[in-house]
Structure formats: structure tokens, C-alpha cells
């Protein structure tokens, strides 16, 4: 059981190594922070003892520089979001109280990012169960790690990777009691137990995302953000396992638009890459089977009639 959980959480960050590493203008500046925040241990000069000391870094404060430089905000200086006073060590105590930006502080009303519909996402998020129950504490950063978040569904054509990436976001709390309890004093309910009713759980969780079942579908958005209470979650199999599978409006949204126009028949997109009982109906097979079945019956009926007549 535990291993299946771990399987979903396999990291997706497997980028081709030979890909030429782009140069980041602020890499040099950021290096002064990564020197400490990129490692398990760091060194600093202890003035009162007058010697260099080595210490362990708080694991939650370690940032993977590789992931950082693949993220949306790779071009940033650390101090674009954090106070420049962090340049000194030990960091001043009151920095702990520094105010964090919200996504909308930078992206709100910006034409460049209009296609992401930040305002609408914000609205949906405000209405979500996470936000309504934990208002101020639950921010966008909880799901979008400030140092690693990278858009996936929009530009990654490997659906498997997208699924793992997106599910890991949810599992970062729902499979990790430490992060979960940042927000709640309760134990986090076991995901495996909560979805016992779903057969082939491992297969399902590697083929669909949590948000397929747990958010209210919004036709205009690529990623719906309104996570609803568990009572509203999709439980009926046929919502996916049918010709009008909800997956065409969520997971396969991009694919579906592109391919359906080209091939012009239903479920063209799902057809080639996935096999979802009930949703995969090969148009040609359907026609062929009806024709073959009809012909068989016809021959049988004619034969039977002739037998009766000639009796």
C-alpha cells in the first residue's frame, strides 16, 4: 500500500541532460543564497569564536537549484521576492515576519498573462474548500511551490508526466502529514482508504488527476481551481467511462480540441493514447461490427425461411 503511494510520487523532473543549460542573468547573484540554501550543510564565519563553522541546513529551507532554474520564475533574483536584507547572515530576526507577495500582486491585471485568467483562478480558489476552511493560511503558494512551480498541463505533451506533476501537488499535503498539519490539527485522512471504492486504484491514479474528480469543471479554464467538498466529488464511473467522458473537458482538453478538428469523429483524441472502457468507441469498428452482425443475421434469416419453404 505504502509503495503504491510512493509510486505516484515519483519525481517527474527528468529532463534531457544534454539539453543546453540556458544562462540565467541572476544565477551569479542567486549563488550567494544557494551556497547555503542549495546544500544540506552550510558554512559561515562565526565572529565571536573567530573561526569558520559548518552546520546543517533546515531541510525545509533547502531549494533544489536545478528545479529552480526550470521553474516559471527562473529568471528571478531571490531578492525579487525576498527582502535584500537576507544578503547578510545571520538573517535579521524580524525578516521572519516579512510580507509575502501573492501571485495577483504581480500577475493581476497584466495583459501578458491574460490567457492564464489569474483573476478567475483567484475567484475559484476563494470559493474552494481549502480557502473557505483555512482562508488566510491557505495561499496559492501552498500548491505552487515558489521555487519550483512550472506550468505543465499547458505545454507538456506527455500526459503521464502532467498527471504525476499535478497529483504530486495534492499529495504534497494529502500524503504528508507534516505539511497537512500546517493547516489542520487533524490527521490527514488516508488517500488509499478514501478511494477504496475505486477499482484498479494504481492504474486510475496514474491515468487521471485528483482535480478531475475534485474540482468543479469550468469549460473556459484549462485548470479548474475550485476544489469542492468530498461529497461533491465524482464517484459515478460513467462520468468518465462513457462517450461524453468528462475527461475530454479536463485532462484531454488540449488534445481533444486539436485532434477532433483534424479527424472529425468523436473521441478521436482519447482513441489513440488511452483506453477507457466506455469512452473509447472506434467509429470504424462500430460501423464494421454493425454491418457484420447485420449480414450474419440476414443470411441466417434467409436460410431459415428457405428451409421452412422447402420442407
Amino acid at each position: 500500500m505504502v509503495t503504491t503511494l510512493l509510486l505516484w510520487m515519483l519525481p517527474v523532473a527528468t529532463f534531457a541532460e544534454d539539453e543546453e543549460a540556458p544562462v540565467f542573468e541572476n544565477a551569479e547573484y542567486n549563488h550567494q543564497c544557494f551556497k547555503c540554501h542549495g546544500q544540506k550543510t552550510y558554512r559561515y564565519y562565526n565572529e565571536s569564536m573567530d573561526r569558520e563553522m559548518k552546520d546543517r541546513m533546515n531541510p525545509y529551507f533547502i531549494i533544489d537549484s536545478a528545479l529552480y532554474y526550470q521553474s516559471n520564475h527562473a529568471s528571478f533574483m531571490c531578492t525579487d521576492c525576498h527582502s535584500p536584507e537576507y544578503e547578510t547572515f545571520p538573517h535579521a530576526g524580524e525578516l521572519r515576519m516579512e510580507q509575502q507577495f501573492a501571485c495577483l500582486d504581480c500577475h493581476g491585471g497584466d495583459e501578458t498573462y491574460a490567457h492564464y485568467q489569474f483573476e478567475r483562478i483567484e475567484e475559484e480558489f476563494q470559493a474552494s474548500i481549502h480557502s473557505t476552511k483555512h482562508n488566510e493560511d491557505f495561499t496559492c503558494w501552498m500548491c505552487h511551490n515558489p521555487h519550483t512551480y512550472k506550468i505543465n498541463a499547458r505545454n507538456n505533451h506527455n500526459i503521464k508526466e502532467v498527471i504525476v506533476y499535478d497529483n504530486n501537488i495534492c499529495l504534497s499535503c494529502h500524503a504528508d502529514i507534516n505539511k497537512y498539519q500546517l493547516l489542520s490539527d487533524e490527521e490527514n485522512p488516508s488517500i488509499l482508504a478514501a478511494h477504496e471504492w475505486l477499482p484498479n486504484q494504481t492504474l486510475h491514479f496514474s491515468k487521471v488527476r485528483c482535480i478531475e474528480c475534485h474540482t468543479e469543471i469550468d469549460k473556459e479554464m484549462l485548470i479548474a481551481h475550485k476544489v469542492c467538498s468530498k461529497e461533491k466529488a465524482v464517484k459515478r464511473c460513467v462520468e468518465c467511462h462513457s462517450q461524453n467522458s468528462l475527461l475530454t473537458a479536463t485532462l484531454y482538453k488540449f488534445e481533444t480540441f486539436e485532434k477532433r478538428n483534424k479527424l472529425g469523429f468523436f473521441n478521436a483524441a482519447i482513441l489513440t493514447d488511452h483506453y477507457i472502457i466506455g469512452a473509447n468507441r472506434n467509429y470504424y469498428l462500430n460501423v464494421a461490427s454493425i454491418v457484420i452482425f447485420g449480414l450474419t443475421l440476414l443470411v441466417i434469416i434467409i436460410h431459415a425461411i428457405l428451409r421452412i419453404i422447402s420442407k
Partner: protein
Amino acid sequence: MESKLYLYPVWLRIWHIINAVLFLVLIATGLSLQYASVDYSFIDFEIAVSTHNIAGVAITIAYFMFVFGNLFTKNGKFYKIKRKGFFSDLFTQIKYYSYGIFVHQKTPFPVTAKRKFNPLQKVSYVGAMYFLFPIMILSGLALIFPEFIVPNVFGFSGIHLTGLVHIISGFGLSIFLCIHLYFCTIGKTPTSNFKSMIDGYH
């Protein structure tokens, strides 16, 4: 008429009735799954999935009963196809079914203790039981244990390919069943073959 032939041993009749019932269940649940819809449901999806799985495993076990029965009893010899005269015999039988039968000719391959099936029956039984059936069983088992499926075949989803193979072989067997049922009505009387399958005597 002449002395009766005992052609259908007990194990065969037991297999056959189990097989027939399970097969009908599989067709009903299989169709229901393939044409599942949000607005109506022939059989509830969850129930259809589990019933289809259980019936599938059961018919597999029954299938082994059929294979072992034919390996270790005399019944197996009825399924041996002789190469000599294969096509001409087949043609003779087809001619009979498409013409001779209507003008009351004698059947060219009457049932004897040595020959239970006419050539056409033989190929269709062999085709159904030793070709389509194993394909259907293997692809079906693969769908129950998808972790063993090769994920990608020439850029095409392996599980999707398996699904197609399963549906096509299932469809093929369903067509076989229609023809099979009809041809079973061609006996001494339309019902005599069905009686044979119950009491064992031809």
C-alpha cells in the same frame, strides 16, 4: 431410428452449460460496459465491471476443463483437422448447406461414432475454441492486470491495443454464437441437437 450414439460425455455437457451461461453474462455486461452512458445504464457500471471480471475468470477456468477434457479423453479426436481433402470436404459441406439441404439431399457427412462434426462444424469449433477463445482470455486477463501490458507499441498505447484485441475477439465469438445457435437447429428436428446436449445421445 437406429441405435443411439452417446457422443456428449457428462464433463462436456457440464462444461458446455457453464460456458454458455457465462458467455451470455459476458456478452451482456461487456456490451453494457462498451456502451456505458451517463444518461442511461443497462447494467450499473460498477456491477458490470465486477460481474464481467468474475465471469471472465470463471469462463477461463471452464476453458481449461474443455482443453484438458479434450486432451485426455477420446472427445479430442473430433477436433483433429486432416489436411487431406480439407478444402474439398469443406466445399462439399458448404454446397450442401447452400443448396442440397433445400432439395432434401442426404447430408454428405452424417454423424457417426467416428465423426461427430461435419467439416464446417469442425473448423468453426476449432477456430472458436483454439483461436478466438485463447485470444479473448489472454487479452481479458491482461486488462485485469494492466501492469503487465507493454505500455507502448510503436507509439500506440499498449493497453488500448489490448482493449481492441479483446473487443474484436469477443465480437468474433459472439458472431460464432449466432451461427452456432442457428446451425444447432439443423438436426433431425430443430430441437434434437439441443436435446443431445442435455442427455448426451445423438
